[in-house]
């Protein structure tokens, strides 16, 4: 099987279309970052409190809203999260409501506000830790075994396992404990605990200081990555190759971040990881084309550089499309099946792989040619890139 047999497409002739295409997307992204949605930093970078809550039934957004208002959390953002049937809600407090002194105050306020049916003196089993349950059991000693730490630890763990593994995070009835723990323990638990209609699945609290620190570091990491590429390519090829590759990768990063801004998808730490991976990936693509250009310059000394570049792109086209296609397949699998936690990460990769593949053809190669044309115009040595013989 073969998709491309000796393709001969004049890519460089279409450079103005490419430029227009790239400009539209970059400008749209930059515009959105500056004037519209801004950069949608995730909680890792802006600080704040995120609480992921799973309800036992279809959550009522208004009821959640009212509960938050009653707790005085007026700036809380409430979003549905994940698949519809999962009954999950994400409650997002901004950094102003995330206290420096007591970092988890916001979380505790949210949990208390949602425990609307709490009977006095009872503990919420859906949000109790196994430690709390163990301590309760040790205190009540329903099995009359005395202070047997191991026994009650195991029983508490069994209860938590039923809740988290079998029931997916929320118990709806004490009957669900039957069979998993000793009857006396189940009865005792029913005495001292109640079941709220939700469980907390995930909590992320980032203090204001950490956010700023991480933002700086993410920016630095991206810059270091770009500088690393520039140096390596300058060393392996000529400096203009490095510049072309870095401009290309910068273009990819800009469009990817722009897409996050346009769609208002949070940029979390893992998204930054994805972007750094893209820097590597997009470079791969560019290097493959550059390697071929370098090889062809030695073989075709008479030809114009634009001719050589076009030929090189066409020769590697089959590989470029295949690799991009295969990587795209894996990333798509991640996007579709990888779960909600990886959503932003795989989105960045999906966008980035499309853009990264496009840009090595549409941006990197034309920069090389444009540089040479500029050299000729200035009356300098026309063959500007006798790439180092290897």
């Amino acid at each position, binding site marked *: 099987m073969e998709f491309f047999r000796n393709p001969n497409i004049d890519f460089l002739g279409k450079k103005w279309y490419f430029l227009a295409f790239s400009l539209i997307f970059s400008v749209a992204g930059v515009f959105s970052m500056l004037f519209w949605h801004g950069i949608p930093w995730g909680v890792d970078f802006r600080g704040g409190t995120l609480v992921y809550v799973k309800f036992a039934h279809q959550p009522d957004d208004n009821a959640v809203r009212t509960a938050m208002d009653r707790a005085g959390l007026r700036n809380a953002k409430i979003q549905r999260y994940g698949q519809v049937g999962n009954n999950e809600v994400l409650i997002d407090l901004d950094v102003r409501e995330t206290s420096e002194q007591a*970092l988890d105050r916001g979380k505790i306020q949210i949990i208390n506000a949602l425990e609307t049916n709490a009977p006095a003196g009872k503990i919420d089993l859906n949000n109790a830790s196994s430690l709390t349950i163990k301590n309760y059991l040790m205190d009540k000693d329903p099995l009359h075994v005395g202070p047997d730490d191991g026994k009650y630890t195991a029983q508490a763990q069994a209860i938590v396992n039923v809740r988290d593994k079998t029931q997916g995070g929320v118990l709806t009835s004490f009957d669900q404990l039957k069979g998993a723990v000793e009857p006396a323990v189940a009865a005792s638990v029913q005495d001292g605990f109640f079941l709220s209609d939700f469980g907390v699945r*995930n909590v992320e609290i980032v203090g204001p200081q950490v956010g700023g620190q991480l933002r700086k570091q993410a920016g630095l990491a991206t810059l270091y990555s770009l500088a690393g590429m520039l140096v390596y390519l300058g060393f392996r090829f000529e400096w203009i190759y490095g510049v072309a590759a870095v401009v290309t990768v910068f273009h990819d990063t800009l469009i990817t971040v722009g897409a996050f801004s346009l769609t208002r998808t949070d940029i979390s730490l893992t998204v930054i990881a994805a972007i750094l*991976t893209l820097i590597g990936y997009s*470079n791969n693509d560019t*290097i493959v084309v550059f390697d071929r250009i370098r090889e062809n310059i030695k073989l075709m000394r008479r030809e114009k550089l634009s001719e050589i570049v076009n030929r090189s792109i066409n020769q590697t086209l089959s590989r470029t499309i295949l690799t991009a296609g295969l990587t795209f397949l894996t990333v798509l699998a*991640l996007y579709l099946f990888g*779960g909600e936690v990886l959503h932003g990460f795989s989105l960045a990769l999906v966008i980035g792989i499309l853009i990264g593949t496009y840009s090595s053809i549409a941006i990197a190669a034309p920069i090389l040619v444009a540089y040479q044309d500029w050299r000729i115009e200035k009356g300098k040595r026309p063959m500007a890139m006798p790439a180092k013989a290897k």
Partner: protein
Amino acid sequence: MNKNLLWKLVLIVGTLIVFLFGIFGIPKAFSGQGLLSAMTDRIHLGLDLRGGTHLILQVQVNDAVKVDSDNAVEVLKEQLNKRKIAFSEVSKPDPDNNPDHIVIKGVPPSSRSDLLSIVHDRLPEYEITSGTSDNWNLAMTPPMLSDLKNRAVTQAIETIRNRIDALGVSEPTIQEHGLGQYQILVQLPSIDDPARVKDIMQSTAMLEIKQSLGGPYPSEQAALQEKGGILPPDAILLPGHNMPGVGEEGQAWYLVSRVSAVSGKDLRDAQPSRDQNGQPSVSFTLTGEGGQRFYNFTSAHVNDSLAVVLDNKVQEVANIKEPIRDRGEISGGRMSEQASKDLSMILRSGALPASVKYMEERTVGPSLGADSMRAGVRAAIIGMLAVLIFMLVYYRGAGINADVALLLNLIILLGFMGYFEAVLTLPGIAGVILTVGMGVDSNVLIFERIREELRNGKTPPSAVDQGFSHAWITIVDTHVTTIVSAAILFIFGTGPVRGFATTLTFGLLANLFTAVFVSRVIFDYLLSRKQRGEALSI
């Protein structure tokens, strides 16, 4: 098969065995379940997959500096008095921002050399410079200051580790967090509600026994009034903590001596016990030296009161009936059984050199971790199958070659992780998938080149040879740049992101071996069995 090829084959099989051992060790059972448990024994799951709590703490290192300079102020006053050098004041002008800065006022010029020698002999970590008129400035030398701060962090890590170990949390991670200054990263797997652990870690547990000079007073003002508006110079007012019978918490104030008779450093042991009323309490014993000091103190103050102060709150005030040598008790009223156990454990683990503040807290519930694991593995398998099937369809015979290389790549990657005790996180699983996608790139590069050479009329052996040698340079370049990205990620990231960088790097390194070396051996083997001029399935 020629000998050269045989050796290469042996090398490949050897590698396979070594890395399979890396993944599974020697499994107890060869069933699916047995293999899975053998695998998770060696490759640890990250917090995001198994559930748990991730905390970042900031050590308030200036606390440690304050303690040191407070001590230096005391030393200075004592020495100046002892040598009869006149001075009007020794103070810290800006204790919050410049905690190591001390000013000595009103020292006559004639005492200059005496003052210098005091600082030189007794406070070698401080630098003294002359200020305006008769003032002198003391500040810690920069290396001493940073040394003190770093020591505070190291000691805090040590103390927190002791406490977490005593709590019996399994497989905790406690280390300096490289990203911010003076920060500690604590990871506690399988702790779903960290509230109690957090309190225990944060408690500075500074125990002091001081002389009680008066109280309880209902408020600070009341105490001041009673003392005629000004406190004695060597006394301080401290709030009481949960004391029975004296009103609300924080409403009782005590006047106690600034200097402590003994402190937490003098403790040898602390155990939960019950006081004479049968209430939970903590009893402690002192070290020999501490006991001696305590004996001297109690002998001199029979019928006076002593105050047990924990974290600057008065826990208990008791009358000294007779000299006490090395035993004491903290009962302080409304202590629960759990609190007495926790407090004795905290006291045993030692005091924190400085208070700590929580900067970041992430808790992944086990139900979410399990869901993420399932989704990640499902995506990995689907992505991998898609690639494997595509390669077979597109390259036919050579597709098998690529698929073998890919599977071996995966085995080596997981084996690496087993050997290096790397942690598999959700982004790490994504890294595995990405390795598959990017790893196959090397095969595609090589195969496309071979096809091209074949089209140009080369014979299969020469096309294979050319294909590999041309693609090799490109493969090295592409791998180096990606590994540079991953290395920067590893340095910059924590937890999940690090897991991703690790798998990506290992995966690409393994890919150099599988896509180039293994693939080549398979081609050579196929070619060696073919007749001259027979076509290659690619």
